[in-house]
């Protein structure tokens, strides 16, 4: 028993002291995320505002190639109405073809289409952005160790460089970016988006909304996962209790400690 405690202490020390894949020791900005925790759910209106920020600010450079327009209307996401989603899809021109003449053509988007990319390919994106590739945002939140806190902080983390730091042309200082240097200029400014629901578009609000949206694009089934998880664990606990008592009953006739 003593040794098990020793082992547990070692393990707890191990897991708590090491953030296995940590970046620098920068404290990220904190906010309440409605989707965290056992019963976490997305704030539907935040998702819709976040989509607006993505479309109006980020989508000119950042693709989101694994998300389909129909996802915008599905359960667990922004849940736009079907007409709204159809209209959103139709507002984009999608490559298609070849037609009967063998030519490629463009047509308005459909529900089944994936989000149209701002650039044809990675190289075009780099060329248009000073050699830096604006990363695809479909799973960006999962692709960064700091997750939503990191993205949320980075969007608000543009500051003047500390004295003495020389920045190359086109490079900006960001307090939370890994290495502090980032080629993207501050994308958000007060009022850059006019929210459809009248919410004030502060940088903090937009950061929170777009990050929430990005959490959904990375994990569209998050709500199902949480709901199913709760049921699964409750079920397992019930079955464990039943099996425990069955075990006690079966072993009751054996002269030994189980």
């Amino acid at each position, binding site marked *: 028993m003593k040794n098990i405690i020793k082992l547990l202490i070692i393990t707890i020390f191990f897991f708590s002291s090491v953030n296995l894949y940590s970046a620098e020791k920068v404290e990220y900005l904190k906010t309440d995320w409605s989707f965290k925790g056992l019963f976490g759910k997305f704030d539907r209106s935040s998702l819709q505002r976040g989509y607006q920020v993505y479309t109006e600010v980020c989508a000119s450079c950042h693709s989101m190639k694994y998300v389909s327009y129909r996802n915008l209307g599905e359960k667990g996401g922004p849940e736009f109405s079907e007409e709204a989603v159809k209209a959103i899809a139709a507002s984009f021109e999608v490559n298609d073809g070849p037609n009967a003449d063998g030519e490629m053509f463009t047509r308005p988007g459909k*529900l089944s289409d994936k989000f149209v990319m701002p650039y044809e390919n990675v190289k075009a994106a780099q060329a248009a952005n000073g050699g830096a590739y604006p990363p695809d945002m479909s799973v960006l939140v999962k692709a960064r160790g700091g997750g939503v806190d990191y993205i949320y902080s980075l969007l608000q983390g543009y500051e003047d460089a500390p004295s003495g730091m020389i920045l190359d042309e086109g490079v900006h200082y960001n307090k939370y970016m890994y290495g502090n240097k980032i080629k993207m200029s501050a994308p958000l400014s007060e009022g850059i988006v006019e929210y459809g629901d009248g919410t004030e578009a502060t940088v903090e609000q937009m950061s929170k909304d777009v990050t929430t949206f990005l959490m959904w694009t990375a994990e569209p089934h998050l709500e199902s996962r949480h709901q199913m998880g709760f049921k699964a664990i409750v*079920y397992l606990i*019930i079955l464990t209790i*039943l099996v425990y*008592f*069955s075990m006690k*009953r079966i072993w009751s006739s054996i002269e030994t400690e189980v």
Partner: protein
Amino acid sequence: MSEKKTNRRDFLFTATYAVGAVGVGATVWPMIDQMNPDASVKALASTEVDVSSVAPGKTITVLWRGKPVFIRRRTQEEITDAKSVKMEELKDPEKDEDRAKNPEWLVMLGVCTHLGCVPLNDKGDYNGWFCPCHGSHYDISGRIRKGPAPTNMEIPKYEFVNANTIKIG
């Protein structure tokens, strides 16, 4: 062992088995359901076709759910022929107006109901389609007239969303 003790023990074991079985079922279902059409496949369940360039007497073939769909713009003569066939002559009796709501347009799955080959257009003894695999002849309404196919070519769900566009599925 007293009656009461046995009953309680039986209940415990029965309850455990029952609860366990629920879990097994809940676990097995996703493994089976993952083979069902996924969301991206279901999103392509409908196809819209622009038929503005189809001249009377011409047939186009489009792909819908991975299968060919024949869309024929029938001439007046063809329509009259289709409607004049007597039900007794048909292996699979079906009225033309039940197959083509708008008689000018015949929209049907271009899959022979015998063993699944794609019949050839404007061929066969009934001025319709002919399946080269085993010699089934279809008329200008897509109905089986001669040969081994048991039923008429299937009419999918479709509608005209506007004068030039048919939405299939």
